[in-house]
């Protein structure tokens, strides 16, 4: 909300606006003091002495303007509101109004104009271009406009959703007075009451509308508002329209009570209804749009049907106009949720609806109407109040809260003392009566946010000043919990993957469900993504079901921007639909190697990563994380390729790795020739729990090492050879290590050669060559017999 400081100063003494804004901010009303918009030089104030119709143009007037130069200037003006009396803003020849508009002395239809009367838009003050800026008649003339306006600082405030009472100049004045410890003087209009006559108000549901009141004023004359009202409205960011509307906006800003002026002559009947919209109803609102409100929207009706949406926007059929001579002024308190529902459904938010949504004080309704009537009667001599009508409760019984001093001290850690408690609460409008070890507090009706003791503690703390509460940190004992297992797993997995040289990524949790779903097969490890019911867009419409696709997206982004040579990982949650409509959250680790991503930085020549680079990463990671060496077997389901993938098993299935299926490459536009390896592993698989690491005795006797090169059929797998070697080698063979694979000219096309280093060692003696020869011979014989191998 924009609050002109001069307006505020009328109700409460204010000091330096910037300091005031800081104090309000600290007390919970975010405020910013901004000076008026700078005005270009060359614009001075000038009194319009006379204003006559242009002899040759109906729409133009010829004004005589005194800019304090001795002789007045003649200025031709096209604004409908130009008139003798007030002070206008005169751009003198030479003034640069921006946008290429430089004012010059020139003939307008035969009359020489020696300047220009400016609108607010021309001055860059607002968007208002319906007429020229008119300042009060007592404004000094011949002064630069910037100087005249400079006194006008505006306070921009942003109250929290629970503080509807701060959406008015008066509400902020009360807050300022409490903060400063000064008094404030709210406007006290004389009560405007008259007989109801034939007027009646019917409220369908008192909960939707606890209070509704009306005032009928006759003999009003529509026209422009007095400049003091127009000016305040403009500075508060509200466009002056005409006096009958401006008065409601003025009272809205001053008191926080939205009012509405109906043209009495355009109302059908004398019964005003407040009820929810019915199916099929519609009305044309003030903005000229035909609207069909939801059944949840609250309407104001007359005998003809809907005439306004309650608390949001008036209707066109009953709107005031230049011809209006009598008005029905409406003031009310509507239920916040009703107005919010209506505002959402109609997609309209107004100054009025913003206040009703935060809650409008039912007790203040009549005073706000009284104030409007007071101003209206002053504006329109001859106008008079003829009827007043009301429905609902004017003064609901106030809330009472018992405040114990003990609660204040327990929550704040400091005792501000009874004087502070009483002063703060009373200055905010609370009724305070001391009682044993505390106070009985009456909550004013405008403070809908206060209902319990703790709310009062907040009032005391924020007005007394949070800065005055001493900082302590008394931690008693140890809280006694450890790190959550899931969190622990998360941080441990990350640390391992970082140590492997991968770059960490953090990808969105929301993905394109249709695209992802199409990539997944039937395997439950990669389920269909869980859709969000109300996504912002389809490409972020589902919860991710896999890290593999998320990492592929990272690769696609990087390939498009700079380089596809990346090695990245993410540890995070994926989501799967579960029984009875719930969702399983699974913690996963994903890795992606592309191009030469994991090559040593700056190394000469770039080695592209292959299947075994990823297999190595997976093995080391699993060993580190689970404490077991995983087996890699079989193949992975979609979105992996069957041909170059494997399942990872370590006691239990842990996950998969390998090359992605072509469908995934296609979706992310990744070329087939780009080496690409992905792994996705579960962090919560029921695998072996890693135990403690225990010392093992170091070998005391020397090992005997033999190399064994074998030739086998190409279909034979390393795994099968190793199994036979280990079994035949017995416990003295500590490790067979593959050191060479050869296929080529020296062998038949159907053959390959695998060469192993065999290390033999006993824990209790040195082995003899005879023993080792015997073992090697046994191994070779078994290999020959079972796998058709021969020694090369």
């Amino acid at each position, binding site marked *: 909300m924009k609050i002109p400081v001069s307006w505020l100063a009328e109700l409460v003494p204010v000091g330096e606006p910037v300091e005031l804004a800081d104090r309000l901010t600290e007390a919970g009303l975010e405020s910013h003091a901004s000076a008026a918009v700078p005005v270009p030089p060359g614009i001075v104030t000038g009194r319009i002495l006379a204003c006559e119709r242009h002899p040759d143009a109906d729409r133009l007037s010829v004004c005589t303007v005194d800019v304090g130069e001795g002789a007045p200037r003649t200025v031709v003006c096209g604004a409908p509101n130009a008139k003798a009396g007030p002070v206008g803003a005169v751009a003198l020849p030479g003034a640069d109004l921006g946008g290429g508009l430089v004012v010059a002395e020139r003939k307008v239809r035969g009359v020489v104009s020696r300047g220009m009367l400016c609108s607010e838009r021309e001055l860059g003050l607002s968007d208002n271009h319906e007429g020229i800026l008119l300042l009060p008649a007592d404004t000094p003339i011949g002064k630069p406009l910037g100087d005249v306006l400079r006194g006008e600082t505006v306070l921009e405030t942003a109250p929290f959703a629970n503080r509807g009472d701060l959406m008015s100049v008066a509400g902020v004045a009360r807050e300022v007075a409490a903060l400063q410890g000064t008094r404030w003087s709210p406007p006290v209009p004389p009560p405007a009451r008259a007989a109801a006559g034939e007027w009646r108000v019917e409220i369908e549901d008192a909960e939707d509308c606890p209070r509704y009141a009306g005032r009928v004023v006759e003999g009003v004359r529509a026209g422009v508002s007095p400049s003091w009202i127009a000016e305040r409205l403009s500075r508060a960011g509200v466009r002056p329209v005409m006096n009958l509307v401006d008065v409601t906006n003025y009272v809205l800003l001053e008191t926080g009570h939205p009012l509405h002026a109906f043209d009495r002559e355009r109302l059908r009947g004398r019964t005003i209804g407040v009820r929810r919209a019915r199916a099929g109803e519609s009305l044309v609102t003030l903005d000229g749009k035909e609207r069909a409100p939801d059944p949840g929207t609250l309407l104001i009706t007359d005998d003809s049907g809907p005439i306004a949406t309650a608390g949001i926007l008036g209707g066109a059929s009953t709107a005031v106009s230049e011809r209006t001579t009598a008005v029905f002024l409406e003031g009310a308190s509507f239920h916040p949720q009703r107005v919010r529902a209506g505002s959402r459904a109609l997609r309209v938010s107004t100054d009025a609806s913003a206040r009703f949504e935060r809650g409008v004080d039912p007790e203040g309704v009549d005073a706000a109407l009284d104030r409007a009537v007071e101003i209206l009667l002053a504006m329109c001599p001859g106008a008079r109040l003829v009827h007043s009508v009301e429905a609902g409760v004017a003064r609901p019984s106030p809330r009472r809260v018992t405040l114990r001093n003990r609660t204040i001290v327990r929550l704040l850690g400091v005792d501000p003392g009874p004087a502070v408690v009483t002063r703060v609460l009373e200055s905010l409008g609370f009724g305070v009566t001391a009682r044993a070890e505390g106070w009985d507090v009456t909550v004013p009706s405008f403070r809908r946010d206060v209902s*319990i003791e703790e709310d009062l*503690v907040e009032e005391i703390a924020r007005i007394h000043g949070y800065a005055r509460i001493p900082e302590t940190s*008394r931690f008693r004992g140890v809280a006694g919990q450890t*790190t959550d297992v899931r969190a622990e797993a998360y941080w441990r997995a990350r640390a391992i993957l970082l140590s492997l040289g991968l770059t960490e990524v953090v990808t969105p949790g929301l993905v394109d469900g249709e695209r992802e779903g199409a990539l997944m097969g039937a395997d439950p490890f990669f389920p269909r993504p869980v859709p969000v019911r*109300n996504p912002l867009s389809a490409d972020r419409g589902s919860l991710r079901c896999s890290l593999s696709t998320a990492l592929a997206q*990272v690769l696609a982004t990087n390939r498009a921007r700079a380089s596809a040579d990346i090695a990245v990982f993410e540890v995070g949650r994926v989501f799967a639909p579960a029984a009875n409509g719930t969702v399983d959250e699974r913690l996963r680790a994903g890795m992606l190697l592309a191009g030469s991503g994991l090559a040593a930085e700056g190394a000469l020549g770039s080695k592209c990563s292959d299947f075994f680079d990823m297999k190595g990463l997976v093995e080391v990671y699993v060993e580190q994380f689970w404490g077991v060496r995983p087996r890699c077997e079989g193949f992975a389901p979609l979105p992996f390729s069957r041909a170059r993938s494997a399942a990872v098993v370590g006691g239990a299935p842990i996950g998969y790795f390998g090359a992605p299926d072509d469908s995934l490459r296609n979706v992310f536009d990744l070329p087939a020739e780009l080496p690409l390896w992905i792994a996705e592993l579960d962090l919560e698989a029921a695998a072996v729990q890693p135990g403690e690491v225990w010392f093992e005795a170091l070998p005391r006797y020397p090992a005997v090492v033999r190399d064994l090169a074998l030739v086998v059929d190409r279909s034979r797998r390393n795994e099968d050879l190793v199994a036979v070697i280990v079994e035949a080698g017995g416990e003295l063979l500590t490790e067979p290590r593959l050191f060479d694979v050869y296929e080529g000219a020296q062998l038949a096309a159907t053959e390959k050669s695998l060469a192993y280093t065999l290390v033999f060692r006993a824990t209790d003696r040195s082995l003899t060559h005879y023993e080792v020869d015997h073992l090697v011979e046994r191994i070779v014989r078994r290999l020959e017999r079972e796998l058709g191998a021969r020694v090369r």
Partner: protein
Amino acid sequence: MSEAPRETLERALREIEAAGDPEAVDVLRVRYLGRKGLVTAALRSVAALPETERPAAGQAWNEVRRALDGAVTARREALDSASTPADDGFDPTLPGRRPPLGVPHVLMQTLARMIDIFRSMGFAVADGPEVETPHYNFTALNIPEGHPTREEHDSFFLSDSLLLRTQTSPVQIRVMQGSRPPVRIIAPGRVYRRDHFDASHSPFFFQLEALYVDEDVTLGDLKGTLREFARRFFGAEVNMRFRGGYFPFTEPSLELDISCTVCGGRGCPVCKGSGWVEILGCGMVHPNVLRGVGWDPEQVSGFAFGMGPDRMALLRHRIPDIRHLYENDVRFLRQFRRTT
């Protein structure tokens, strides 16, 4: 004679510095420091001076000898290292083979740092689901029916009974339900809100929740805890400002600003000229929240706060746009390889 040591020294140093190869240095060494060298001769001649002048002259010439000795050695080493035995073709200026270095995401670095600080202050790390029920995400946190955040406009729903958590605060409830006071936990994790992407908003981001409930936990304790955190995270020079706030699950509610990390509080675009940037919301746990988990607000009290690691990362590293965090451009990510 009194000026001679200095003049000799200066000339000799100039000549040594100008020597272009080790041989030239050696010639100079012999000329000055050799058995028949100038300095050696001068030292010898000291004995012939009157007794009163001898100590001063001896000291002066000894200093010259030490200085030249050092200069000769230094020059020789400089010439040695500059001359490369080029004959074997070894080129040490080829690039080093730098091992691949795992780089943590800057957001995770930030989160890890925050967690470290709070753990050292005795907070345990708790966890909770990202798919929540309205009960945990709203009702138990004293957010009434009809509150805007419960609407589809603000929150992502999977069904009437499931939504993506909009805050890490539900973890407060889950932790309290399963234990007895005291609790002192932090709960980092992902949250989701229906905000469109812009420089400072993302529909998904991280939060770090903290909760401390015990007998007589006060607002003073909350302030002290956050002061310590800010001092350790942002540095001792950071200024803090608590101001009134509004959250349904705390009463009183506050927000914490720190002096802008970019301009130091003078005002800049990051702090929109105010000199302050908001880093978290906090307050004393609302009695309805405590009652909801069966704890008696007459017996225990507590504080809670929630801060945004995303925002903290942006502030700490002067990253202008939150979208960088989720685009995962490796060139961006690897800027933060140097841990601080």
